[in-house]
């Protein structure tokens, strides 16, 4: 069934232990494999602060893209807060990313157990799993697993006799990339457009219904039961000092074995590519890799080959680990065509609140299209840079930067392909003309 991906071939299976099974979504199977023991341990006498401390010590970093330490985030909830909300972010809409889908499809109980423990740690009484609307079949599956939990006494009132009460709602999104941004997500569940809000205040202080709210990615939450059962030190035995533990990478593009893989952070890309992915598919040659979802800078083959897959190594190479959505680009692909696809996406998904993002994404999309129509001029390449500098770091949320990072890096690393489309010499009239608005 799961012919498209597995956990890593060897090495730890903290997240992917049941990816190869077809029945791993059943409560009975999960319990047979030790499921809900971590919850029993937590509710059997641990304090919320102890749970938070273990997660902090484990060094777990948020797997939604930003890599912020999970335990530290939990610690921001004011101690005096009486009502706290917890959201699991399963909006998974970053192009190239399809790992959370595997976690919820093959092993929903692991995420649910992690959610209950996380809710306890921040003293939340109501949690939500926000699943993108396109994952219709997955929503049914997760809802069934939640229902099983209520029936088994893992959710609801007085969980496992501990006195802790928790409700968990599976919330279905309705098609908006921006709802993956944590404040957009919160506004969406309040019954509004999914437009992000200015931070501060940060959700941990004032979020859903103006109450302290923690938003964590599915994979972050799914890592929690293992950490509680095995301890922070055991988790730190994998990965690197600053990037502890394991991470899922979802790999797309013409490699021999695309799919979702769990690897210890810090693995050399070269080994991952050759040994785990089996290299390129027959007849294909590696050109470039977008390593962490479409919003991070692209690296040409020779640069990525020298990277290790962890936050620091990728940062030093000028890109980011992001969501772990690895897009492998073959030689046959035209980079200007690919960036047009991406600029269309960001333009389409901009929520429109901030002028630099709303207008900038449209300008970039039109400038790239103009180049591809053969009407571009050398000035247009400068204009792209000019538009990018007016967009980066100036907006309510990072979607604007998320468009700039691929745009700038495609242009910098593959400038020759852009220049080849430019007319020399520039037609005078055209060079002074701002690209006209047009739809794809």
């Amino acid at each position, binding site marked *: 069934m799961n012919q498209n991906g597995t956990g890593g071939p060897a090495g730890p299976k903290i997240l992917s232990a049941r990816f190869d099974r077809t029945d791993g979504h059943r409560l009975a199977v999960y319990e047979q494999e030790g499921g809900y023991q971590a919850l029993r341990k937590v509710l059997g006498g641990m304090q919320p602060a102890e749970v938070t401390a273990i997660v902090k010590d484990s060094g777990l970093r948020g797997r939604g893209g930003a890599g912020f330490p999970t335990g530290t985030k939990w610690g921001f909830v004011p101690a005096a807060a009486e009502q706290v909300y917890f959201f699991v972010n399963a909006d998974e809409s970053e192009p190239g990313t399809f790992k959370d889908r595997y976690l919820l499809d093959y092993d929903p109980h692991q995420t649910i157990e992690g959610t209950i423990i996380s809710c306890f740690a921040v003293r939340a009484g*109501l949690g939500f799993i926000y699943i993108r609307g396109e994952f219709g079949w997955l929503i049914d599956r997760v809802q069934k697993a939640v229902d099983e939990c209520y029936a088994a006494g893992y959710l609801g009132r007085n969980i496992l006799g501990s006195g802790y009460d928790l409700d968990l709602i599976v919330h279905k999104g309705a098609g908006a990339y921006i709802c993956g941004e944590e404040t957009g997500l919160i506004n969406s569940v309040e019954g509004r457009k999914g437009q992000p809000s200015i931070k501060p205040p940060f959700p941990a202080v004032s979020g859903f219904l103006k109450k302290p709210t923690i938003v964590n990615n599915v994979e972050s939450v799914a890592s929690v039961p293992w950490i509680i059962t095995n301890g922070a030190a055991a988790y730190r035995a994998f990965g690197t000092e600053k990037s502890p533990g394991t991470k899922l990478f979802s*790999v797309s593009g013409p490699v021999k074995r695309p799919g979702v893989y769990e690897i210890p952070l810090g693995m050399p890309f070269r080994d991952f590519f050759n040994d785990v992915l089996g290299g390129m598919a027959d007849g294909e040659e590696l050109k470039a890799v977008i390593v962490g979802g479409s919003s991070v800078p692209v690296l040409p083959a020779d640069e990525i080959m020298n990277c290790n897959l962890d936050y620091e190594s990728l940062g030093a190479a000028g890109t980011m680990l992001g969501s772990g959505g690895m897009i492998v680009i073959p030689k046959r692909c035209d980079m200007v065509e690919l960036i047009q696809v991406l600029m269309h996406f960001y333009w389409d998904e901009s929520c429109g609140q901030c002028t630099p993002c709303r207008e900038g994404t449209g300008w970039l999309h039109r400038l790239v299209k103009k180049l591809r129509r053969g009407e571009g001029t050398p000035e247009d390449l400068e204009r792209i840079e000019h538009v990018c500098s007016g967009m980066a770091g100036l907006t309510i949320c990072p979607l604007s930067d998320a468009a700039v990072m691929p745009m700038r890096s495609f242009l910098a690393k593959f400038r020759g392909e852009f220049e080849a489309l430019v007319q020399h010499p520039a037609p005078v009239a055209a060079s002074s003309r701002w690209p006209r608005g047009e739809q794809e």
Partner: protein
Amino acid sequence: MSMPMEDKAGFALSPGALARIETLIGRYPTKASALMPCLWVIMDEVGWVPPGGVDLLVEKLEVTHARVNEVLTFYTMFRSEPQATHTLQVCHNISCHIMGARPLISHLEQRLGVKLGQRTADGMFAIEGVECLGACGMGPCLQLGSHLYEHLTPDKADTLLDSLRRGVVPRADTDREGVE
């Protein structure tokens, strides 16, 4: 699925759907926060959200028309017009593009005689280009309702169309054996 609901005054949900709306209002912490799931109840029953459905939610959730309409139009999966019987939503984002989404779209356009974003004259099919569907490693892919078809080729797309014309929605890659 499709009831004659164009008439605003004649809008009525089934008792089951109305009960689901009441349950949702009870579960969500504020009435307004139940707006998205309530819109889904109407979408699931009617296939789109007619003006009468907007009125119903305004009343039940005690929110303004502006609020309901704003949410209805912000999210691409909520629809405020009747839909084709089968809307084929083809991912045209980067990974699928690399693996052949454009030739797949051209093929579908040719087979159905309509362009991306259009509906066939008989109202049977529509094709839409959509952003990443979370199946990037299994692309090109398309979504039909809550079914996801992966690893598509023009041949597989033809088989899908033929089957839909016979009134059969074929097993999708996300439908799992032995699962209810």
